[in-house]
């Protein structure tokens, strides 16, 4: 990594923030209070049995009981609704296939992408099965989903690493990404006006970072939740992290699905055969240098 990269401090800060959050759990520690009445001992007992329940346990319980299921419901309902509206009002972008083809994705990258995509899809689906398990009746079906979630997580964790390395260079934030956001990538208009983006636009970059770094955090927190060996307070924070990040990932996953399946015609095909039509590249990836 280029150490002169202006965004390095930001990345470092974000990583530290996440790590601090996760490790903030109090270590298992006895505090002495001397020979007092038994009521004075209860707080110390609680600290041993369940950590700092008042702070983390209550937080987790409250969020898990009401916030998380609603959040995921929101994620599953609102973006698709907005996209439906978008599709009806603005419609898909179509580009002239006669303008010629540009090789956009190499074979290896495509294989990696589809491995990651498949495992991610399974992860999202099984994850949602767990979250909405009560509507499936629980039991062996959802328990099975948990096992599949675990296997899929292993596949995803392995494939996300080459994906990260392959696209890292093109995914580094650039000044024009702000401009891309200002015009919302041009998706709010039917006009084919070039938007500022190189190989990947700012939205894709956001998705990339979330899927790779966020995916890594998901893998780590998921492992902690699987191993179940950490201090209880840490487990609680891991569960909270896993849920929030999971919601964000599912949201972006839906955006990604819409963009590739509906918003840009031929997008799916480009990831299958590797080619995009020249016009699409010129409009949507105007800063991409076609060799």
């Amino acid at each position: 990594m280029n150490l002169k990269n202006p965004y390095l401090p930001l990345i470092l800060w974000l990583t530290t923030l996440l790590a601090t959050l996760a490790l903030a759990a109090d270590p298992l520690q006895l505090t002495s209070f001397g020979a007092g009445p038994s009521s004075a001992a209860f707080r110390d007992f609680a600290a041993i049995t369940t950590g700092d329940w008042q702070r983390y346990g209550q937080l987790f319980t409250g969020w898990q009981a009401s916030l998380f299921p609603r959040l995921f419901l929101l994620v599953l309902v609102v973006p698709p609704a907005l996209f439906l509206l978008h599709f009806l009002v603005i419609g898909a972008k179509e580009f002239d296939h006669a303008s010629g083809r540009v090789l956009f994705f190499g074979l290896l990258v495509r294989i990696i992408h589809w491995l990651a995509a498949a495992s991610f899809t399974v992860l999202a689906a099984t994850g949602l099965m767990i979250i909405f398990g009560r509507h499936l009746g629980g039991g062996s079906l959802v328990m099975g989903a948990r096992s599949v979630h675990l296997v899929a997580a292993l596949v995803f964790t392995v494939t996300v690493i080459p994906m990260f390395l392959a696209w890292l260079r093109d995914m580094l934030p650039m000044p024009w990404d702000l401009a891309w956001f200002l015009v919302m990538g041009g998706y709010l208009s039917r006009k084919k006006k070039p938007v500022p983006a190189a190989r990947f636009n700012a939205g894709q970059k956001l998705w990339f970072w979330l899927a790779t770094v966020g995916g890594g955090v998901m893998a780590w927190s998921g492992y902690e939740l699987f191993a179940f060996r950490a201090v209880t307070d840490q487990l609680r924070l891991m569960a909270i992290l896993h849920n929030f990040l999971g919601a964000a990932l599912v949201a972006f996953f839906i955006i990604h699905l819409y963009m590739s399946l509906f918003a840009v015609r031929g997008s799916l095909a480009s990831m299958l055969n590797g080619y995009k039509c020249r016009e699409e590249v010129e409009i949507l990836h105007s800063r991409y240098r076609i060799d």
Partner: protein
Amino acid sequence: MARVKFLCDVERCIDCNGCVVACKEGNQVPVGINRRRVVTINEGRPGEKSISVACMHCADAPCIAVCPVDAIYQRDDGIVLVNKKICIGCGYCFMACPFGAPQFPGDRVFGARGAMDKCTFCAGGPVKTFSEEERRLYGQNRIAEGKVPLCAAMCATKALMAGDADIIADIYRKRVFRRGSGAGAWGWDRAYRGK
């Protein structure tokens, strides 16, 4: 209907682990699963105190609130039970529990957690009462036999009590009242120095 509760009198618990072993032997709980355990603070120092902890069968049980598959339920008498056929072993109930009660056997593929196991108040589970299946999945059903849970029945010093909440509260209130004056009373040592 009366509501049942546990109460552990910290002044009486002597950390003998009789409750733990009674529970495990009586319900044939696997090694490594602790439906009940004894926690000690300040071991070996003045102020050493022990308490026996298991599922407290909370009135507004956090485990029920967080269970994503509604495997945990509460009976009319307050006993909180888990349906092991519905439970998916996610572990959320453990994180929500203020008492560390839910336990998980690591008996699935890759050592993944199986269905949650916890104190049943010796009331079996949601299968046919006194059936072999109940015994295998949940242990004894002493409540249906009209008996108190094994742990409390075993407690040598009567520190751990289980049963109707009003009666237990009454016993404890009397104990506290009796202890309240004289030996161990707050301030007496300092104020009167035995005079």
